[in-house]
């Protein structure tokens, strides 16, 4: 019986004075050793979701559980203990690393911070990780403020996240700045950790990358779940119009891109399907929010079209 590592239930997050919720009614469950992709573009709420999972934000409604413990019910010391089993890679490689440290110091820092009394003396593990990730030894002691490219910074952030051997890795677009050739190296390194029992939530806008990294995926649009299922099925046989648009928008070698979208401005406070903003279909009944329908053991869709039994 594998342990549950993270789960959210009907998670909703609304910011003050902003009408549209950042996240609405998101639920999923992640077990030990599993990897889950959160697919969506900017504005889909994926970054807020990660921060909610770590307890850095309080949800407006709904529950978050980490390693079985509900986050709203846990005291400071216990919360700290749970958080130390996680690692978070933020999306911005320039703000995600402290500029006054060197790569070596930045990678060792999580080990210092998570020890009592803030004492840790070793650097070998950090050096190993840095060379595995392709950062040359000559750069190990140069201050981060002195010019490292976005790609290098992302790799250093990955080392910084992996050095504590986390049980749960929350990664927000960790390979967006990599060249195609180095991307495979990072993916393979992550796969090694996954094989050793690490669980991962991988946020990306790239469905192909999601397929390479994870087995299961959730597609988010403007804070709502559109579709869930095995990632390779999301690619091969998308059900929700948004997933279909994402798949067809992916540049494929040698094939022209054809995306069918129809842009519609939605009135403020619109309570129907958010994808109506782009959906090439868009029926009258879409003015009501389509419920999340479980289609099979692993797949569910929130669209009136994906519901074959009810037709259009």
């Amino acid at each position: 019986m594998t342990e549950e590592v993270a789960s959210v239930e009907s998670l909703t997050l609304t910011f003050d004075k902003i009408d549209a919720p950042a996240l609405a009614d998101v639920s999923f469950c992640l077990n030990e050793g599993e990897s889950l992709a959160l697919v969506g573009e900017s504005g889909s709420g994926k970054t807020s979701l990660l921060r909610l999972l770590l307890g850095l934000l309080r949800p407006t409604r709904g529950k978050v559980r980490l390693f079985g413990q509900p986050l709203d019910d846990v005291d400071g010391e216990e919360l700290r203990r749970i958080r130390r089993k996680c690692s978070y890679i933020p999306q911005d490689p320039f703000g995600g690393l402290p500029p006054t440290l060197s790569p070596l110091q930045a990678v060792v820092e999580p080990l210092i911070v998570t020890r009592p009394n803030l004492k840790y003396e070793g650097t070998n593990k950090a050096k190993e990780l840095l060379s595995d990730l392709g950062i040359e030894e000559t750069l190990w002691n140069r201050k981060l403020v002195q010019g490292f490219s976005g790609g290098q910074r992302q790799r250093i952030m990955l080392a910084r996240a992996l050095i504590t051997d986390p049980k749960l890795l929350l990664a927000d677009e960790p390979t967006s700045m990599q060249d195609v050739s180095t991307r495979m190296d990072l993916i393979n390194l992550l796969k090694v950790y996954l094989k050793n029992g690490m669980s991962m939530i991988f946020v990306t806008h790239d469905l192909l990358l999601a397929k390479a990294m994870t087995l299961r995926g959730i597609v988010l649009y403007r804070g709502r779940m559109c579709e869930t299922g095995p990632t390779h099925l999301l690619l091969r046989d998308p059900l929700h119009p948004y997933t279909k648009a994402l798949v067809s928008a992916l540049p494929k070698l040698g094939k022209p891109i054809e995306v069918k979208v129809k842009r519609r401005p939605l009135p403020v406070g619109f309570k129907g399907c958010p994808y109506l903003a782009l959906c090439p279909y868009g029926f009258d009944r879409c003015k009501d929010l389509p419920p999340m329908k479980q289609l099979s053991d692993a797949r569910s869709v929130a669209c009136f079209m994906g519901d074959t039994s009810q037709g259009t």
Partner: protein
Amino acid sequence: MSFWRLDTLFLAFLSLLALLTPLLGPVNEAVAPPFCKPLWLDHESGKPLSLNAKDNSLSFTWESKPPKTFSVKGTVTFEGVPKSAALLLAGPSKTYKLVDLAGYRNFDVDIDSRDVPLKLFLGLSPFVDVSNVIFSERGAYSLFIASDVKAHLDLNLNIYTGKWGIFGTDQRGRDVFRLTLAGIRISLLVGIFATLIASTLGMGLGLFAGYLGGLADSSIMRGVDVLLAIPTLPILVVISGVWGRGLWQIVFVLSIFSWMGTARVVRSLTLSLREAPYVEGLRALGAPTGYILARHFIPEAMPLLLAQMALGVPGAILAEAGLSFLGLSDPLMPSWGRMLHEAQVFGAFTSGAWWLIFPPGLGIASICLAFISVGRRFEEMADPRLREMAER
């Protein structure tokens, strides 16, 4: 960017001078008559002379117009008690008896040409200038003892011509050049200490206000607003009236009134640093606030802080100089502002005695310029945009 440029070299040189000047001896003693002009300015008067006579006599020539004053100081020891003895100063044609030494075994000589007893002893009116009379001729002079018992002398003859030193003397007869050198110490002390205390205070309060936010932030910022509204100089005047005029009073008050700028700037920086993703990551790992502030925020604020400090020093120096110029500082403290105050009070400005005004004035201006130049370079290091402008 190389550290050693003109400004840093200049400041290092000044610091060295500041450290070494105490070795030159006390500065508040009179070394020459008051209001002497600088040596190189006055070409008519003769050079001042300082001679030491041992054993029996001292000979010298005097080839210029009569000096302003002269003095003879020292001891005369006889090998017995003379029945008749005197200290004589002989000129080309006449000899003058300066003091009668008969009946003394040891005598401490302390004669100044301005002394009225001496004038009376010489048979002159108290309104006559003794040195004018004695040194009226040009030629050979000698100072000696005439007695019936062997005598040993250890006398210092000093002849003052109204010229002295590199910058002359002030109203108390103090060497202005020595005073100028001594002023470096005061300016550096006040400038650096006041700014150091103010910056530390400002950084601490700015960090707290920025990181903690809420009530701490509002109260600190309201404090800043209130203190900024208070004009510094009048307060300094009141405090020096109430507390006395000392160096450390000035340092204290300047510190209290200078930390606000730094606090504001550090607070803005902290506010923006607080939102950085890596800070969130560290908080998620459970890093204590103190660790984040000490390990990350303070190093990031360093270049900014250094710039603020370097640019704050001229302010403190000028404030101190201003206060001293108004006469509100310790009269025994050889500060440049005080020198300017005394110059003004004793009419140097109106009589055109510029050598009393330029040295302290230039001193203040140059030290402030040097600090601003260094501060500007720190600013360039802190703010990349300025660096680009500098490199174009």
